[in-house]
């Protein structure tokens, strides 16, 4: 018989891993679909960051990033290439959060407001938000990505289910 401690460790971690995968996946699906349905709005918001000075670079990011997020969301929800997708998620979140922070600082300075009172549409697919909420949200998503990257969230994952089914026939 397993001790309560062993039981909790054995059951809690995989369940939380699945939840983390689904939360991160659902977030990417929602924000990606929102941006993909309104690509011009996303293009205009992206332009405000002044990160891309050539039109093709700006167009490519605005056209492809929303659908790329949808693809990542689908992979995470289904549980295919979870650790690889988690790494890609981190690589998207870190520079984007930095850009949001820089823009928030610019607005803070221009509007003479405290940082947490700055509210703007960062192009994240969630509309206008207070910057501190947005940054906290992004840090949580980064935390989930790190955890998935470390190997959580493999349970109920399509790739492993397929692998196990295949091994039965071999």
């Amino acid at each position: 018989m397993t001790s309560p401690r062993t039981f909790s460790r054995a059951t809690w971690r995989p369940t939380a891993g699945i939840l983390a995968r689904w939360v991160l996946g659902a977030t990417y699906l929602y924000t990606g679909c929102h941006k993909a349905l309104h690509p011009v709005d996303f293009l205009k918001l992206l332009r405000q960051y002044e990160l891309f000075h050539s039109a093709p670079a700006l167009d490519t990011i605005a056209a492809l990033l929303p659908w790329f997020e949808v693809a990542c969301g689908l992979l995470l929800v289904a549980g295919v290439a979870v650790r690889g997708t988690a790494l890609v998620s981190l690589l998207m979140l870190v520079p984007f959060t930095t850009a949001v922070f820089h823009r928030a600082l610019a607005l803070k300075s221009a509007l003479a407001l405290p940082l947490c009172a700055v509210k703007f549409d960062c192009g994240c697919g969630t509309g206008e938000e207070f910057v501190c909420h947005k940054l906290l949200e992004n840090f949580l998503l980064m935390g989930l990505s790190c955890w998935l990257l470390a190997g959580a969230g493999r349970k109920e994952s399509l790739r492993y289910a397929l692998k196990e089914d295949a091994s039965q026939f071999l």
Partner: protein
Amino acid sequence: MLRNILWESLLVVLAGSVFALAANEISPRGLSLTRNYFPAAAGANPAVVRESPASSTNQSPAEMLVSEIKTRGLQLAVSNQVVAWFKDPRRQTQKLIFIDARNAEEYQAGHVPGAWLFDPYHPDQYFAAILPVCQAAEQIVVYCHGGDCDDSLTAAGLLQDVGIPGSKIYIYGGGMNEWPATGLPLETGAQNSGQFLKATP
């Protein structure tokens, strides 16, 4: 293990990029990857807020828009001019036309009665209809939301690019944010639908 993760992420990037390219191509709202969507505002982006205003031009977004209008050889139209032009009999003969540079959804929700829709982010859909009208018109009033919205400027730039002289293009800076305050009606649905909303200043 690290190598596996790196390979996996590379595959995710490749598969995700292929998926994104295909989806953007199929989507009716997809963007072109090679078009410059902001040709008119190459030198200025009124929506940008800079960290240190002293290091920039010290202009508000609206002032930047006005200077960009002048740089492009266009004219700025103010509210009372626009009201007078709306009542001008030349509007009935399409010698004076209004162009709405917002998207189709916003246009349907309410536009200047009789205005032509010209979404500058999907110009190919509208050029065939508006180009002959613009060529024949003596005066063209282009508007978008107003404030720091520069879609009217982008639309005017596209018209200039196809040979419409800037001297007959006027940018209504107040745009649809200001229009209800003029007391003039708003038309809903398609152009000349005959459905009007009462102005609510």
